[in-house]
């Protein structure tokens, strides 16, 4: 029996190759997308699930309520771990680690300590205790990692770092010098950290060594740093809430908090870190569950759109199959037998589409990886989960797409089927199919609208005036506390004609480095309930970044805080309307350590991404904390300028590695996640539209077939070709409009919510909706016209003869 079904299916599909291709390609596109999205979602959900204790590991975060509003981070004071070990035995094993955001590594030769090679790492250098390996199950190969890091000044290299630093050599026993401060002995080479961890590392260094690198950190309860984190496993059966309360009781005894402020340490499950951008992760990758849901929905929608095509195309095809169905019924085929036959046919098409989509996915995965900066791979045969997913898709699509057509076709009355007189109204299931088309159009329009809005917001990020110049400026880090060495060489730095201006500062205007301070203004009598952002920079800062002054002047050159410049927001907050009024007023910052006069007011500029509001800013000088040299260079001579800057820089810091970043690039990185989402939206809405068009094309061909006689009669009676095209188009215009009415509010709701994340955002103009509606209409009409024109130009005599 099945052999017969299969034979007929293959031959029918081969005969109606056009129809088969439409279906297969549409389905394959939809399934490919869902497959890729499945891979992405699965990857994101797999973060740190490979640790055997994963479900009971927690990180300690802190929620603070300060005068400036709530603050959250994952930093803990250094003595926290000892306290846990002494008083909270149920939190075991517990460990702390320190993550440094960068470092210079010098490969020393074993005997004479002569520097050989230097490397610069920007992230993922992790300082851990042996207990790290009791808690987490990272792959360590044949190395006994616990043992390897038990001594101070030891380091475990990952394979890729070992290959880079010591090509063709065995690094074990060799010495690596970090930041020209500490010598680390390589005690082993371990496999690279898994891709799916929020604790990524290039190398693991013994925790004690971090104290020499992180000199800002001390043993006090009052010093915290978001890179100093505590992790622990909760013993089974103990109460998380009670432990959390006890920890807070203990810490409150030691922590000094300003009156009016509150803080609470909370335990965050390891498995939730990846989905919570509030506390962040060391991988600095988080993805919200909402985004994952959205991606999952998009994947399902794409399959849905393709399945709808299938339903429409298959019912269209049904008319041509009526004779066969009639004859099979005459020969005694029962309705379930016929349904099985047609479901098998759908299954076959789906299977072909599925196999095709596996090939597509394989081909497209590298692009997706590049787009999302991931390294996902799949090998279908060794992946039972994936096979199960594909099987589920096969069954679901076969039933969803095949059931209705099978029901319709198998329900034909044999006599009428044989005479091809199947009541068209019966096959049409008109309202159902119209509904399906509306669903398709709605999905397409929602995706189009979202794409336009996300794109516009991205454009806004790119083009919005940030209040400073970001073009052709390079940010060059200088070793901590040593900015003075390079500042002494300033005449040399600026001697090259392509170097327009230089400024040393704690950071460029927009950066993820904040230094907050309480302050007192003017007569010092009023207690202000907010703190200010201290922007410490030299006297060339405003000139280099073209930040305009509203009143007064820039402060004079100085190594310490003498004079101040404030921004507009500061004036608003202290209630000063006229910038001139602030000039000459006294200011006290940094816990009362620094006093000086305000000499200038600058126009507001953005200090971080457009997600955040502009805070009140106080600018002043302090050479000690300048971490960056910012140089405005000539774009067309950038290469020469950089070479010159590097030369001078290396004169000042011969033991360090020169590196730089263009300022506009670092600003673009604020919006990486959004940029990725924008790309995804674009790709998937484009595919949804393509699939939708395929379906529409099939649907119109169905309608044309269904109304052949009507068209013939109309033409005999003198209808013009245009009016025939209009006849078919009118229906679809209606459907697009209905879809538009549904899609508008849905997309407005979601995009409005999305935009709320940004303090500075575009307004969703009505033109976005009109444009999306018009675009859909245009696409729909173009697709419809292709088929409608064919009907319109057909010979009416032939149309009438087919009856």
């Amino acid at each position, binding site marked *: *029996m099945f052999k*017969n079904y299969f*034979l*007929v299916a293959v*031959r*029918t599909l081969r*005969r109606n190759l056009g129809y088969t291709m439409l279906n297969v390609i549409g389905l394959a596109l939809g399934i490919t997308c869902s497959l890729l999205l499945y891979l992405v979602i699965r990857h994101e959900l797999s973060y740190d699930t490979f640790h055997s204790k994963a479900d009971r590991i927690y990180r300690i975060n802190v929620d603070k309520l300060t005068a400036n509003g709530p603050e959250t981070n994952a930093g803990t004071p250094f003595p926290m771990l000892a306290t846990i070990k002494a008083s909270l035995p149920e939190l075991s094993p517990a460990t702390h680690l320190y993550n440094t955001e960068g470092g210079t590594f010098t490969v020393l030769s074993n005997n004479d300590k002569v520097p050989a090679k230097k490397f610069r790492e920007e992230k993922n250098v992790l300082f851990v205790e042996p207990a790290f390996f009791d808690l987490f199950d990272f792959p360590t190969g044949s190395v006994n990692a616990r043992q390897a890091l038990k001594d101070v000044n030891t380091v475990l290299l990952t394979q890729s770092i070992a290959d880079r630093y010591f090509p063709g050599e065995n690094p074990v026993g060799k010495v690596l010098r970090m930041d020209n401060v500490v010598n680390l002995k390589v005690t082993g080479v371990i496999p690279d950290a898994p891709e799916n961890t929020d604790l990524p590392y290039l190398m693991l260094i013994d925790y004690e060594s971090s104290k020499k690198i992180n000199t800002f950190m001390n043993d006090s309860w009052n010093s915290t740093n978001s890179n100093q984190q505590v992790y622990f496993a909760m013993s089974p059966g103990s109460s998380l809430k009670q432990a959390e309360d006890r920890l807070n009781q203990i810490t409150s005894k030691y922590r000094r908090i300003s009156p009016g402020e509150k803080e609470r340490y909370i335990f965050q499950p390891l498995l939730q870190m990846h989905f919570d951008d509030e506390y962040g992760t060391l991988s600095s990758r988080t993805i919200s569950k909402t985004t994952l849901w959205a991606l999952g929905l998009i994947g399902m929608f794409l399959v849905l759109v393709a399945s709808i095509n299938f339903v429409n195309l298959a019912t269209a095809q049904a008319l041509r199959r009526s*004779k*066969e169905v*009639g*004859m*099979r*019924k*005459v*020969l*005694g*085929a*029962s*309705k379930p*037998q016929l349904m099985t036959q047609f479901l098998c046919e759908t299954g076959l098409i789906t299977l072909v589409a599925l196999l095709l989509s596996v090939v597509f996915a394989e081909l497209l995965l590298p692009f997706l990886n590049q787009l999302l900066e991931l390294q996902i791979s799949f090998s279908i045969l060794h992946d039972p989960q994936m096979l199960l997913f594909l099987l589920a898709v096969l069954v679901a699509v076969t039933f969803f797409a095949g059931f209705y057509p099978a029901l319709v076709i198998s329900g034909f009355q*044999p*006599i009428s089927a*044989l005479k091809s007189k199947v009541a068209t109204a019966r096959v049409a299931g008109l309202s159902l199919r119209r509904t399906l088309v509306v669903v398709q159009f709605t999905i397409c329009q929602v995706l189009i609208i979202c794409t336009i809005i996300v794109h516009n917001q991205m454009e806004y990020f790119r083009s919005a005036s940030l209040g400073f110049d970001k073009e052709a400026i390079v940010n060059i880090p200088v070793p901590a506390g040593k900015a003075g060495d390079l500042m002494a060489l300033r005449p040399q730095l600026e001697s090259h004609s392509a170097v327009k201006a230089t400024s040393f500062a704690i950071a460029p205007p927009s950066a993820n480095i904040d230094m907050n301070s309480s302050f007192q203004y003017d007569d010092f009598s009023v207690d202000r309930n907010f703190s200010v952002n201290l922007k410490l920079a030299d006297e060339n800062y405003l000139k280099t970044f073209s930040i305009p002054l509203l009143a007064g002047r820039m402060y004079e050159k100085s190594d310490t805080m003498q004079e101040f410049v404030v921004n507009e927001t500061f004036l608003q907050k202290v209630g000063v309307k006229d910038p001139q009024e602030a000039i000459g007023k006294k200011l006290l910052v940094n816990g009362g350590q620094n006093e000086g006069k305000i000499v200038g007011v600058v126009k507001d500029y953005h200090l971080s991404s457009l997600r955040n509001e502009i805070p009140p800013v106080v600018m002043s000088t302090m050479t000690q904390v300048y971490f960056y040299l910012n140089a405005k260079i000539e774009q067309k001579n950038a290469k020469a300028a950089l070479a010159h800057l590097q030369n001078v820089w290396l004169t000042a810091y011969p033991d360090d590695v020169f590196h730089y970043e263009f300022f506009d690039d670092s600003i673009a990185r604020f919006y990486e996640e959004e940029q990725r989402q924008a790309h995804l939206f674009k790709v998937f809405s484009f595919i949804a539209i393509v699939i939708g068009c395929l379906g529409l094309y099939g649907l119109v061909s169905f309608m044309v077939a269904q109304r052949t006689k009507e068209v013939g009669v109309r033409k005999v009676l003198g209808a013009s070709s245009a009016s025939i095209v209009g006849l078919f188009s009118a229906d679809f215009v209606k459907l697009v409009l209905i879809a538009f009415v549904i899609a508008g509010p849905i997309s407005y709701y979601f995009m409005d919510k999305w935009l709320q994340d940004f303090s500075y955002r575009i307004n969703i103009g009505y033109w976005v909706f009109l444009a999306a509606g018009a675009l859909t209409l245009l696409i729909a009409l173009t697709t419809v016209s292709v088929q409608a024109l064919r009907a319109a130009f057909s010979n009416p005599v032939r149309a009438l003869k087919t009856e």
Partner: protein
Amino acid sequence: MLKTVNLQKKYTTDEVETTALVNVNLQVRQGEFVAIMGPSGCGKSTLLNIIGLLDNPTSGEFYFLDKEISKFSERQRANLRKEHLGFVFQSFNLIDELTVYENVELPLIYLKVGNAERKQRVEQVLEQMQIAHRRNHFPQQLSGGQQQRVAIARAVVSKPKLLLADEPTGNLDSAHGQEVMQLLSSLNEQGTTIVMVTHSPTDADYAHRIVNLFDGQIISENVKELAIL
């Protein structure tokens, strides 16, 4: 074999009621060859469809193999059809996607006949219809006469008790038509009961009995002298 008592068939649309058959009383005995004749629209095909269990009468009784079946469900009728009935149509109604062999095999598949027996029976009937040499051809590759021979082969391969033919020669030239009628006639001689709807007096001549239908009623029956009743 079959008997109808006051058989009526009405088609009802929103406003119009059309009566296709009025009080038809017809009896067909085992081994008979009956031709139903009459002008277009007189109800011939409707009668044949009811006899062929493809349609239900509006009222009246219909006995098939001594069972009253006018109220049978679609599934029950489908079972009777595949076990006892064979159909031959004017337009052959072969399935284009299947070869000659596969078309003839199809009824046996629905009857769940085993593989070996199926093969043997199909081969046998193809030989009988002198179409075996075309077994791997598709319907469109055959002439009309050949197609109808395949259709007859398909109709008789399940050894039905009753063979229903709806204008079997309507789409054929006279030579092929005659060939087909001779085939039917010889099947009848071998014991198959045949009911045939036709326009053609020549074809009707092959029958033992001719039933004339007009406006849904039987107006006359001619029994041929040679009929073996």
